[in-house]
């Protein structure tokens, strides 16, 4: 079995992976198996490292020993307001410490914010910069990293290849540290949408408009691009910060929504479907989750998924959405 770096090297050599034929998904729940874990976390002051370690132990196939680990928080925007836009620094630092205790060879935190070119400003205003400094963690600005092209393993967009930052290519294990939020274009932004930030702005712009406009037909392609990125990068694990999420006009202008949990797992579509169900959404109504289910990134029907930890019902809450996403809540 190819490891992640071998896989990327192979797709770089061939320039493409399998071209999928047609996308005729019916808007119905599937029976694809999958798994995800929900852990209770009432606030950011508790010992999140132990909690995350407990969660990681639920996935014995996951190994960080001797690996270079890249932690990718959601760091999309800065604001002087208190809106919970970004993955909380406490979750990022706790995840880093958890992977350290799992004997990771190295850990780097990295992101390429979608709207801002000044990473120092984003780090300072989000509070993440100080937290990383205190935890002695390095940060890499993926927007301005050296890049290399690899074949687009998903091919739901028209892009034959995707440029990835060298830091991403060199990582053995990419971990998506996402935020539980609504998204005014995609419905919800969770562990998969968070991977947009792995894509370098120096190639795709600010916002990463090339990825928005590469569909078949050419217009809006955010759902397709999300799946292409995840299939190509092959991140290994997802942790969603659902301690305080965002409802309404997310991912930036919404309102805080306390939920009190972390959602984790190694099957990204299943993790996101579980998180979406917690938000009160029907996961199969989110376009990119349907595509991801079909692409083998995990099942998306909460009734079929193997749920570990706490049940969805314990945290399910009604996230407000913009009117054009009201259908996400319909059975």
């Amino acid at each position, binding site marked *: 079995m190819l490891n992640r770096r071998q896989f990327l090297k192979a797709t770089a050599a061939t320039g493409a992976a399998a071209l999928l034929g047609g996308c005729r998904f019916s808007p119905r729940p599937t029976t694809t198996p999958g798994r995800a874990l929900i852990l209770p976390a009432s606030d950011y002051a508790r010992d999140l490292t132990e909690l995350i370690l407990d969660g990681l132990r639920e996935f014995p196939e996951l190994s960080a020993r001797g690996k270079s680990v890249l932690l990718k928080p959601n760091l999309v925007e800065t604001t002087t307001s208190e809106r919970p836009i970004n993955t909380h620094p406490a979750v990022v630092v706790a995840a880093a410490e958890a992977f350290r205790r799992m004997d990771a060879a190295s850990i780097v935190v990295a992101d390429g914010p979608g709207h801002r070119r000044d990473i120092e400003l984003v780090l300072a205003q989000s509070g993440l910069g100080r937290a990383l400094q205190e935890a002695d963690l390095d940060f890499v600005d993926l927007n301005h990293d050296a890049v290399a092209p690899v074949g687009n393993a998903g091919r739901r967009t028209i892009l034959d290849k995707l440029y990835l930052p060298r830091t991403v290519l060199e990582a053995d294990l990419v971990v998506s540290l996402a935020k539980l939020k609504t998204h005014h274009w995609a419905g919800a932004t969770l562990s998969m949408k968070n991977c947009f930030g792995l894509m370098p702005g120096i190639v795709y712009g600010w916002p990463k408009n090339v990825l928005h406009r590469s569909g078949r037909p050419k217009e809006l392609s955010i759902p397709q691009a999300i799946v292409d990125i995840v299939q190509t990068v092959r991140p290994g694990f997802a942790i969603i910060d659902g301690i305080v999420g965002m409802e309404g006009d997310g991912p*930036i202008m919404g309102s805080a929504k306390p939920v009190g949990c972390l959602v984790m797992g190694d099957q990204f579509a299943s993790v996101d479907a579980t998180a979406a169900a917690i938000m009160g959404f029907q996961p199969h109504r989110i376009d990119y989750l349907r595509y991801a289910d079909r692409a083998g990134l995990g099942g998306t029907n909460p009734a079929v998924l193997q749920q570990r930890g706490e049940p969805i019902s314990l945290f399910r809450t009604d996230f407000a959405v913009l009117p054009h996403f009201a259908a996400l809540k319909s059975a």
Partner: protein
Amino acid sequence: MNGVTLSRIPAAPQIARGDRISHMDDWPDESLAMLENARHTDGGWAYFDRGDSAVEPTAMAVAALYAHSRNEAAQKRGLDFIGSLQQSDGAIAPQTSQTEPSTLCAVAAITLAVCGDASHRAAAARVADYLLSYDPATSQRMPHIADDSTLRGFAWRPTTYSWVEPTAYVMLLMSRLNRREHPRMTEARRMMFDRAVPTGGWNYGNSAVFNTPLEPAVMPTALALLALWDQDAGPRGPAPLRLGIEYLMQRVNDTPSVLSLGWISMALRGRGFDAVLPGRFGELFAASNRSANSPWHRGVALLATADVSRNPFIIRG
């Protein structure tokens, strides 16, 4: 003087006494030395302390050396590095590891046009021709977006939508090449005013989405003000300019990054304000190894404190 008094610029914070003072005071010389040492063998500079040579940090480094009249040989090698990435259609790839061009080539071309010789100026003109050769995406006006999406500015990449920062870079380039009367520049100015956030300033390029006004950001605001240098910011001029200046003034004291502060300083100095802010840069370099080791950040800070007449990114009427 633009209808806004100098006294409204908040004072820079006091620098603590002790050893850090000399370090912080020394940052310009330290930065110039850093640029000379961080140059790659191909003549270019990277964004940060790792990475390939790239045109934007190279352009900033060259412009900083030019503005401070340092190391002409390094300037020429940097300009030649940028020129070496120029493609047959005039575009310049952003870095050696990426062949697809972006509108960052306008940043490089501004430096080529101002700091270079005749061959570099010819290369800058070819960049301008390339940028004018394609149309960015437009669409019918959309009810959920406040902006006039029929207007063309410039996009980061061909076929995508126009955004504030690339449009500003291209407008500055066209001004440097005496091509600001081009019809695309007239349209770009309209686009810039259209995208201004109603409360003041600009962000990446949407003023309101789904009826929610968005927040301004420092770098796009500063670049918009620099690009609109020929527009009157006084009481009789367009309101977005006055509001943009006021927004930047409010951000001077709480902007905790070299890059953003550098562009604030350049934008305000371009409008005639005394906003050199050297103490702040020293403090910020001392606080961030990433900035201290970034030729990009060093270059912007040096430009922000250089003689305005030697700064390729500041044009004064």
